[in-house]
């Protein structure tokens, strides 16, 4: 029941985020505003316990949620046959660069602070 209550809170926060984003023409996507709204309400116990239960379920199976979009890659056959190899090179190299930079910067900053 807690997880279900938590899901209701998540959907409420997301709806509030979507309303804000559309109503005020903000550049942030609705779910991101929802995240910030929810973060502000987590100080209340009544919100925290159910949200924690729902978040653990959702984030515990996060990778499943990417499958439908992943299968959608097959709809870009035209682009893939034309640019596939180049796109893959770009994605692989830029991902490694991003991971390496993040890790090296964070490690040196944490070390500097001791």
């Amino acid at each position, binding site marked *: 029941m807690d997880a279900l209550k938590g899901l209701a809170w998540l959907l409420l*926060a997301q709806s509030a985020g979507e309303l804000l984003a559309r109503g005020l023409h903000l550049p942030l996507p609705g779910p991101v505003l929802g995240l910030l709204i929810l973060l502000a309400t987590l100080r209340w116990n009544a919100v925290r316990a159910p949200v924690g239960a729902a978040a653990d379920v959702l984030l515990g199976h996060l990778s499943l*949620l990417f499958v439908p979009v992943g299968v959608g890659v097959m709809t870009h056959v035209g682009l893939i046959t034309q640019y596939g190899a*180049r796109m893959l090179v770009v994605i692989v190299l830029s991902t490694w*660069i991003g991971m390496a930079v993040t890790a090296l910067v964070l490690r040196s900053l944490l070390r500097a602070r001791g």
Partner: protein
Amino acid sequence: MNSFVELWVYLSATPLFGLTATLVTYVLAQTVYEHLGHAPWANPVLWTVLTLAVLLTLSGTAYPTYFAGAQFIHFLLGPAVVALAWPLWQRRAELRARAGAVLAAALAGGAAAAGAAVGLGWALGLPAPVLRSLAPKSITAPVAMGIAEQLGGIPALAAAFAVVTGLVGAISAKYLFDALRISQPEVRGFALGTASHGIGAARAMQVHPDAGAYAGLALGVQVVLAALLMPFIARLF
């Protein structure tokens, strides 16, 4: 035989098919992944996507037909982004103490990933709409779609790039970090979440609890930073 074809035509046209195929394939892939001791190459998203793509192609099922069922799973990406407030909240004390280092690393890594993607893509002669869809590739798919739309890219393509980026990170991170001699789980997790969003974070959560928490944190920070900064920076060009 004929009745079997009729039955298949009926079944594959209902939302039940897409939803069942997605869940069953994923559960099987996840079981194999666990049996293989979480070997990076056995990534369950990769094998589920490949299996479903082959299945849809062989059966001649169109993607929209599949998506009619799969959308119920896809929809949960939105609430999952909202749910990232939870790992942020849980680690708030640690986060406050390390706010400077975490923000600097998130900014540097996010900028490096997006800059390298657009720069390399430009150097290799990819067309402008593809470049605009490449920029938000390190952000979790639903947010990447929104950002790509604002940048003038193709949302569906941006989502595809985000998924491939997530898979590349989840599969290769271990080897990259080992080569760079980065051993702290929180640094490895944070870097994986920054460059490879939800799929990377899912991998980190399976490997080490500290790595998982920092990956969730990185994912949340990156989503907020990118959504705030990317459209602004794109306007400068």
